[in-house]
């Protein structure tokens, strides 16, 4: 870490997410972050690596971390490229890049801190905000249904997709460890508490109550299938949703280079 004070509010779930990530990296035998390149967008979650991790970190524009990460990974295939972003960043403004990265199976790990709100800008409704939640732009309760980012990642072709909450820090850490050892587009959604911009308006007394809510409403993915959609209203399905092997973008792009060099002889 750089010798800088972390920017998060007291009780923020992003402390837990940073902690889970760094523990995962350490437990995999890394003494530092030299093998990594971090890419992030704009928002609180994007501040996890930038500039606090003593590592290469590219802090991009709102929603644009994934294309920049794609460019980096393609020209530096040996680097472990990790994207940090919030729900607004990854599946709001940057949604199309997320879907296409999963389709391409780009060799990056995307970690999305889902606080269900636009926290940095003061608590406006997000595409992940639960139905009927009060926010600064939905004073009568939100009137749209939230997006299931992990499910979308599965549908779009991600190699690995999982979701945990900050109430399951060990599972979250183990999932990050696993994802770091896999190839292709890996997506981990960490549902995190934002007491400042979400909790206090959504009716939570304090951070403890938010974490208890996460714990009590988490449903393991295996059980969720039996419960069915109606029974899952207001619940958070946690666990792994996919873990599969298919050719990654680095593999397919570099195989094109080989083909081109053969055909280039006649050019």
């Amino acid at each position, binding site marked *: 870490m750089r010798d800088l004070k972390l920017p998060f509010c007291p009780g923020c779930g992003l402390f837990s997410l940073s902690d889970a990530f760094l523990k995962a990296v350490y437990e995999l035998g890394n003494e530092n972050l030299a093998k990594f390149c971090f890419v992030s967008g704009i928002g609180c979650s994007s501040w996890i690596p930038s500039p606090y991790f003593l590592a290469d970190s590219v802090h991009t524009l709102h929603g644009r971390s994934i*294309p920049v990460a794609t*460019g980096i990974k*393609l*020209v*530096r295939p040996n680097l472990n490229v990790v994207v940090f972003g919030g729900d607004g960043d990854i599946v709001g403004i940057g949604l199309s890049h997320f879907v*296409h990265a999963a389709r391409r199976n780009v060799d990056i790990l995307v970690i999305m801190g889902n606080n269900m709100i636009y926290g940095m800008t003061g608590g406006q409704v997000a595409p992940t905000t639960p139905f009927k939640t009060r926010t600064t732009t939905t004073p009568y309760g939100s009137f749209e249904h939230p997006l299931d980012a992990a499910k979308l990642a599965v549908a779009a072709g991600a190699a690995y997709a999982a979701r945990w909450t900050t109430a399951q820090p060990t599972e979250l850490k183990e999932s990050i460890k696993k994802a770091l050892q896999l190839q292709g587009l890996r997506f981990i959604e960490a549902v995190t508490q934002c007491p400042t911009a979400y909790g206090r308006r959504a009716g939570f007394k304090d951070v403890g109550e938010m974490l208890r809510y996460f714990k009590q409403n988490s449903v393991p993915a295996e059980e969720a299938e039996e419960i069915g959609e109606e029974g899952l209203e207001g619940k958070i399905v946690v666990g792994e949703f996919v873990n599969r092997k298919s050719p990654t973008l680095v593999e397919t792009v570099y195989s094109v280079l080989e083909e081109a060099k053969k055909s*280039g*002889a006649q050019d």
Partner: protein
Amino acid sequence: MQTRKTETYFWSGNEACAEAAITAGCRFFAGYPISPANEISEHLSARLPQVDGIFMQMEDEIASIGAVMGASWGGRKAMTATSGPGFSLMQETIGWGFMTETPCVIVDVQRVGPGTGQATKCAQGDVMQARWGTHGDYVAIVLSPNSVQEMFELTVRAFNLAEKYRTPVILLTDETTAHVREQITVPPRESIGIVNRKKPEQQDKAFFGSEEVAPMPAVGDGFNVAVTASTHDEYGVRFTQDAAVHRRIVETLNAKINNHADDIVQVENYRVDDCDVGIVSFGCTSRAVYEAVETAEAKGLQVGFVRLKTVWPFPEKDVKRLAETAEKIIVPEINLGQVVHEVQRVACKSEVVPLNKVGGGQLITPEEIYAKILEGRK
């Protein structure tokens, strides 16, 4: 099969641009289909992989310029090519490139706008956008070729300036120059100067404004570089409240270009000595000016012509020199008046006359320019 041999070819402007990029050392291209820039993508999709370069077609122009920025921080020379609508979409990320001092080349093949306009028709309406397209205080380098040969020359130059000054450079061309086929001679390899970005020494830690053009590390090279387009200090650490830090960074970004305008600006001065009438033009429109100048000369009229190969920074010195003798300066351009405002600003004592025509891809003819030269004369 590395770069093209020193031979004479019959290429379109877009093909010359693509080949020149490879000559300049470009090894990453990301783009999104758009007329009239497609031939650059198509050509590079075949050629780049032959030289260990990567071609990517992304999901949109925003992703394309994003991938280009990523590749540049990965240590490669990188480029994208687009036209007005795509250029508009890229603007935020181009601003990110200015603020993070990321070398790259953006080709804008101009077509008729605004909006979708006329997608396949030539225009020159993006001159001001190329200079002022993104928000905030910055200075852009913008080059404007007027032939297939020059498309090659200025594409190489765009990469060289991007690397030298660590900044995005815009190659502002137009549908006509991009699609016309002409004879082009690829210069001998040894005569083409290639500039590469300055790399840091092992002990270096400051990569942003620590010197006029600071050394640029690549990610993965062990420098732990923190890159951000938020206001930052020499080490890339964000300072989003401090006035002094912000002023320092924007003043540095502006000075590194403005202080070297003489190095960056290139024009062609054509019969400018002691002229009575002046003409300032650029890109495809400038091709019609020579004939008008010669027609006027045959009638005993001295007409001088300044052709802008660099549009931004604006070639003030050359336009001022033209204005010393020219009482009237004509500015033909395929838009409703953009460069003319700069000429008016610089040549304030001369009568500056716009000559505009836009739509349908119609070009300004030598006859129209000649008629403008005669206008108001007895």
